[in-house]
């Protein structure tokens, strides 16, 4: 990386065996290679994505009519609980950090592996053990508490497999923590020569910020779940109102984790999108430093806004005011990021490959999700719309429109790097466009229903809302088809796809300076870094090697 950043990979390195070379099962299950662990996580979360998606499909089918058709109320309640638990803890939270973070962080900072490779594979094993508890609770008959496990319903009234589900989430939490500890230490101690903090790609910054949130928030969820498990299994009264327990205590502890958890889901997505937009606009990210500050700001302030989930829960009015205020403050850095992505397109040289379509889709949907976030940060509006479909639509815009779009964007962007194969570009673009429209089709009607007073978690609903539910379900079927498409054309590319060159997108970044798929040790010699990320202007003007303006 001493001259212009698009030079070819050294010949000698190309002859190294790739990380995919060994084919035994144990070489996968007990690997210590961060790239293989990323692939292991990818298979696990793909499995859970389709389980959660199947639950959503059944719910949307049931909701086509206002009456109970083929599901009993108890079955419906188990389905939305399953959808929430699986999608939040077994897909969204691990998705980008454990798959792309594991695969890319060491390569992006020029390291051979993460700081603690053994802890890394342990993290996948712990995830698998936790997941099997949850799968058990599903097979055994499901859980009907909602993914929020509110007490005293979950501790005293629910007659379902709360313990197994909570244990599954509790155990999986340790996997998240292990991953977070690993990434923080890796980014602190593993950066190659010349890779200063402000030369890190924004994806690395995003994973760093999210790891801090993981390490500090997840144990609080663990303590809440531990108390629920003790109360259910050992009958220790902690949240029991009859002995003087506080029904709101659990909610405070739970949301102290679960609001930052929203940022665990969306911060890595922001990192992925920054990489993609810079690459396909052939331009540096506008305001790089401000993007970094914005992510740190979101991670930090995100810890102090949990009370906005509880405006009608019975907390003090004055507490609500403070939480409302802080929620507006935490929205500022998110808005800045949207402006910066848009401005990064200015004077670019833009092409529209599939990853870019996903990234632009992310910016649009995240903007709508963020703006409706302002609605629910306003106490008078939130009192009306909380626990209605308005909130459902809002957070799906952030998590599905935002995080899942970014996940697919990143998947397509780094697919040639991870597999060494190219996919069918036309099919990928079609899937991206279908996901965007299918998504809006599914969730925009829910804003309208929500403001009209359609409460969430209702199987049987007032018939006036039927037209909107039908629209939403129709959109969901488009979305379902779109989500299946990558399974086929990416699967096809694995075996029959054209071989990928080391840097098919002509992107900057150290992960592209090594063959696709990369060799076991990533680099032949630890690379040296001499300038900031996103050095795309050198492409037009090879003489221009000045440090890129990072907005100091």
């Amino acid at each position, binding site marked *: 990386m001493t001259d212009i950043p698009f030079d070819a990979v050294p010949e000698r390195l190309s002859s190294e065996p790739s990380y995919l070379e060994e084919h035994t099962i144990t070489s996968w299950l007990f690997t210590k290679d961060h790239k293989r662990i990323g692939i292991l996580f990818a298979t696990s979360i793909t499995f859970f994505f389709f389980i959660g998606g199947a639950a959503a499909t059944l719910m949307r089918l049931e909701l086509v009519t206002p009456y109970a058709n083929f599901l009993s109320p108890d079955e419906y309640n188990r389905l939305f609980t399953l959808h929430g638990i699986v999608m939040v803890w077994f897909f969204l939270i691990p998705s980008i950090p454990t798959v792309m973070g594991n695969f890319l962080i060491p390569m992006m900072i020029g390291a051979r592996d993460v700081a603690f490779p053994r802890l890394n594979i342990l993290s996948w094993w712990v995830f698998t053990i936790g997941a099997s508890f949850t799968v058990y609770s599903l097979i055994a008959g499901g859980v009907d508490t909602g993914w929020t496990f509110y007490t*005293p*319903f979950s501790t005293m009234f629910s007659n379902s497999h709360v313990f197994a589900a909570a244990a599954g989430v509790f155990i999986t939490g340790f996997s998240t923590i292990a991953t977070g500890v690993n990434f923080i230490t890796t980014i602190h101690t593993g950066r190659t020569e010349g890779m200063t903090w402000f030369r890190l790609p924004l994806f690395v910054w995003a994973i760093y910020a999210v790891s801090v949130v993981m390490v500090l928030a997840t144990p609080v969820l663990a303590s809440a779940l531990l108390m629920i498990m003790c109360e259910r299994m050992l009958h220790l009264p902690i949240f029991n109102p*009859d002995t003087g327990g506080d029904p709101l205590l659990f909610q405070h502890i739970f949301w102290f984790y679960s609001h930052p958890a929203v940022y665990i889901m969306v911060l890595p997505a922001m990192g992925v999108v920054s990489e993609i937009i810079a690459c396909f606009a052939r331009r540096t990210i506008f305001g790089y430093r401000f993007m970094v500050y914005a992510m740190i700001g979101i991670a930090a302030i995100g810890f102090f806004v949990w009370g906005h989930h509880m405006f009608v829960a019975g907390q003090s009015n004055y507490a609500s005011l403070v939480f409302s205020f802080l929620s507006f403050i935490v929205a500022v850095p998110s808005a800045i990021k949207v402006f910066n992505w*848009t401005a990064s397109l200015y004077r670019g040289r833009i*092409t529209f490959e599939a990853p870019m379509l996903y990234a632009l889709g992310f910016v649009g949907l995240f903007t*709508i999700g963020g703006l409706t976030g302002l609605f629910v940060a*306003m106490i008078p509006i939130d009192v009306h719309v909380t626990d209605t479909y308005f909130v459902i639509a809002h957070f799906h815009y952030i998590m599905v429109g935002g995080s899942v779009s970014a996940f697919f964007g990143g998947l397509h962007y780094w697919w040639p790097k991870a597999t060494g194969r190219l996919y069918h570009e036309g099919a990928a673009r079609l899937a991206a466009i279908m996901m965007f429209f299918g998504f809006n089709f599914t969730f925009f009607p829910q804003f309208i229903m929500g403001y009209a007073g359609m*409460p969430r978690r209702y199987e049987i609903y007032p018939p006036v809302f039927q037209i909107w539910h039908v629209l939403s379900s129709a959109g969901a079927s488009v979305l379902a088809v779109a989500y299946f498409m990558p399974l086929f054309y990416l699967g096809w590319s694995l075996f029959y796809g054209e071989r990928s060159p080391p840097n098919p997108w002509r992107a900057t970044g150290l992960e592209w300076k090594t063959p696709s798929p990369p060799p076991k040790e990533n680099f032949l010699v630890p690379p040296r870094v001499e300038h900031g990320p996103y050095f795309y202007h050198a492409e037009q003007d090879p003489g221009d090697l000045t440090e890129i*303006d990072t907005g100091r």
Partner: protein
Amino acid sequence: MNQLFPFPPEASLESRGVDMLYFAMVGVSFLIIVIVFGLIVIFAWRYRAGSAALRTRLPAFFSREVEIGWTLATLLAFLGIFAWAAGARQVHFAPPENALNIRVVAKQWMWKFEHPSGAREIDALHLPMGVPVRLNMTSQDVIHSFYVPAFREKQDVLPDRIVTLWFTPTELGTFPIRCAEYCGTDHSLMDGEVVVVTPAEYARWSERNGDRGLPASGAQRFAALGCAACHAARSGIAPRLAGLFGSRVRLEGNRTVVADDAYLERSILDPRADIAKGYLPVMPSYRGVASSEDVSALIAYIKSLRAGGKP
């Protein structure tokens, strides 16, 4: 109600303000979405690969100035919206005086309402139009949430606690009540309706369904539950109840509180929450001892005691 856009009517004093805020925010959001999407589309077109647009580098200072500019602008705009929303809510902080107090008991999966007149109803709530109403709500099992979309009001109902919600109905008619906090199997069927009638009609309705003997029945229960032992006129163990209702009570910890319906109910069910100044916390909780009907009757009885009266 429009079939295609089933927006609930604005049927309370509070609902108009909520809708104003909401539609103003819809306008603001629409504007921002047009700007952001518009810029993305314009840039995507103008700077597509191969177009002849100018692409020289921006001056070094540019990024920093722009960043600080739009950060401050966003911050100020958001603070403005916060101040507006907070101001709109703040008028709702203090409960209205002379409100009609109604006790609400939620349980899986029904709503029970008890009026001051002693009238009781299930899954239906008669209210007079134009009169501030205060609901003193508690749950007997899990958390529920009392939600009337037409009033734009919602409040979670907690087990073993009394939470209050107040509003003023302004339209005659029938409006659905829904449970908004997931509460188990029949959560989606835990509904009811608010029937808003004219004050005169409400008075007649209360007359017809009420229980004139409620204070008297309260007096009997007062004796039967053993309250009189401590709350007798000269006992000195417990505060006198005559003239208590509506007065300001000094509490331990130098707080004062107005003895309203919610205070009386809390003092019966959770006596240690508010200890009257100068008394020891010796009263046991009557939760589970006094039934919901007992509590209504006791409150009616205490309200009927005038200053200088017997206990």
